[in-house]
């Protein structure tokens, strides 16, 4: 059954289920993750299978949810705690960035903190400015955390398993608009290493670096460009922190042109870090500046009329690629 097809969200749930079967110390906790199975069905069936002890519905208390995970992880369990919407990480930012991320170091390296924080990011559902954000950049800046943002069902399962087994705090972000997307997902347990990027498509003319849902858009853009005779290489970072810059730089040294595509606001986004490292490590190979395709500097608008314009997509990426390719070696 190596070609079994299931959805992104089911792959996520399956990873949790398999790890919970394998390790009695793994549990889930969060708002409506138990009886309801998560507002996006990310935890469907977990409580039915493992009971209320291991699938815990909590009060609406994001700080205490993360604290619960920290305390349980510090004392030997392997918690998965959920924040529902990525926007809510801001409510619990102290516990995530000042506590979970730093305890190991502050404790002189003695602590082990196998904590997985799950959440859903991304816009496109008319959920407006407080239920649509992509805030990964804010937490990539915090030493001690690992940030994971998978782009397809196969990766979700392997990366989520790796997060659960990881002895450091991880933030696993699912994109809301990919939950139903199907992919070929092996049945048993497997892990994908954190901190290793994936070349999702080989190409020679230009590199597109991306993560999460934007990898799909990048691949779609690559299809468009292929029809125009351009060969795009698409690098899926999978993990933002730690960042696998080697895979990116290897690609750029081959293609000499690159854009970074992400859904978050461009200004101060994680694309800036990727761009800064590319120009540092591949300076002599670049035939054009590192381009960035990302959202404009505004909160996310409610109305689809504006949200559709707001969102980066395959067309915008394709346009960005064309622009990068069109740039003469010396523009001025």
């Amino acid at each position: 059954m190596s070609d079994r097809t299931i959805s992104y969200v089911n792959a996520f749930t399956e990873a949790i289920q398999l790890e919970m079967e394998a390790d009695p110390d793994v549990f889930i906790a969060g708002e409506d993750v138990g009886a309801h199975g998560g507002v996006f069905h990310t935890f469907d069936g977990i409580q039915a299978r493992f009971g209320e002890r291991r699938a815990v519905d909590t009060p609406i208390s994001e700080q205490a949810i993360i604290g619960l995970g920290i305390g349980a992880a510090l004392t030997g369990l392997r918690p998965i705690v959920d924040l529902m919407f990525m926007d809510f990480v801001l409510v619990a930012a102290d516990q995530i960035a000042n506590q979970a991320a730093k305890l190991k170091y502050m404790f002189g390296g003695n602590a082990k903190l196998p904590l997985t924080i799950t959440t859903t990011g991304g816009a496109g559902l008319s959920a407006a400015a407080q239920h649509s954000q992509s805030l990964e950049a804010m937490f990539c800046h915090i030493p001690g955390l690992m940030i994971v943002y998978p782009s397809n069902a196969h990766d979700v399962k392997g990366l989520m398993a790796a997060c659960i087994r990881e002895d450091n705090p991880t933030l696993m972000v699912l994109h809301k608009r990919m939950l139903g997307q199907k992919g070929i997902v092996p049945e048993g347990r497997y892990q994908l290493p954190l901190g290793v990027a994936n070349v999702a498509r080989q190409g020679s003319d230009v590199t597109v670096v991306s993560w999460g849902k934007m990898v799909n858009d990048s691949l779609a853009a690559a299809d468009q460009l292929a029809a125009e005779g351009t060969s795009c290489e698409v690098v899926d970072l999978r993990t933002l922190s730690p960042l696998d810059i080697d895979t990116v730089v290897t690609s750029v040294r081959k293609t000499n042109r690159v854009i970074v595509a992400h859904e978050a606001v461009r200004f101060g986004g994680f694309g800036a870090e990727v761009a800064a490292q590319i120009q540092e490590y591949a300076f002599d190979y670049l035939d054009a500046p590192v381009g960035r395709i990302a959202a404009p500097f505004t909160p996310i608008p409610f109305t689809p009329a504006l949200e559709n314009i707001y969102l980066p997509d395959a067309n915008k990426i394709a346009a960005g690629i064309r622009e990068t390719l069109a740039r003469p070696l010396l523009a001025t």
Partner: protein
Amino acid sequence: MELTPARHLDMLRSMIRIRLFEETAGKLMEAGKMPGFLHLYVGQEAVATGVCEALRVDDYISSTHRGHGHLVAKGGDLSRMMAELMGRAGGYCGGKGGSMHINDLKLGMLGANGIVGAGVPIAVGAGFRNKYLGTDQVSVAFFGDAATNIGAFHEAANMACALHLPVVFICEHNMYGEYTPTEKAMVIADIVDRAAGYGMPGVIVDGMDVLAVHEATLEAVARARRGDGPALVEAKTYRYYNHHGIQNLGLKYRPDAEVLAWKERDPIFSFEQRLLDGGIATRDEMDDVWAGVRATIETAIEFADSSPFPEPEALLTGVYTRSNS
């Protein structure tokens, strides 16, 4: 103070405005005309109405994800509300905020809020302003039962008490936070049990009884206005529909019988009965109220439907206010 028949009809009208606005929004959502999440207020009309009828236009309120009722009761324009929910340029936020961020600063309605509990500190800020300026305006924070488990609520409640601000806390206890029964999220049955921890009085009222809500709020508001500090009013109520969307029966987290039992005590129909029984209003008068509101709703739908979507340029405006002083 006795309420005149006209004031009774005002309250009835306010509740009907909420009810019909919400039912209409629900239908438009089903018809695919309303994007995003819709947290309907139906069932809780007596709370927003009873409270807001105790307020002046220049008093402030802050609201929640379930905020339409609060804006309607504070005097919101149904046309601009409907247009906002449909993402149109003519909406309260020009289509940029939607259901969860609807507001009318001119009416002192400081916004629905997508973050549970986050509106409470904002109401406290408005209360601070009232005291700072020495006005007798009050500020009201609406929030749900489950929201009282979040830190922002706690900090705001204590802050209001510590600074002795004219803030009234209105908890709408509808027994659930999303799909979790509140009895699973807290040990206590009554939110008022938290009031003593801040040093303010708390009172429980029947949230299906608009007059009871109104009376309790009047007292709390009067207290705040005369500088005697915050108070908490807990209204026991129920939302007829699902946490969002318009399913009402057949939900796995609550028994249908419970829904039906609460509907027996419907805030609008029971109030109508009371007005009839007390000889305060006739069926005809009340039918006129329904008809009037229905007409307003029709107007609102037309307004919203004919309001254009915002122009692309609107995407980038309003991030920063350009009018520095």
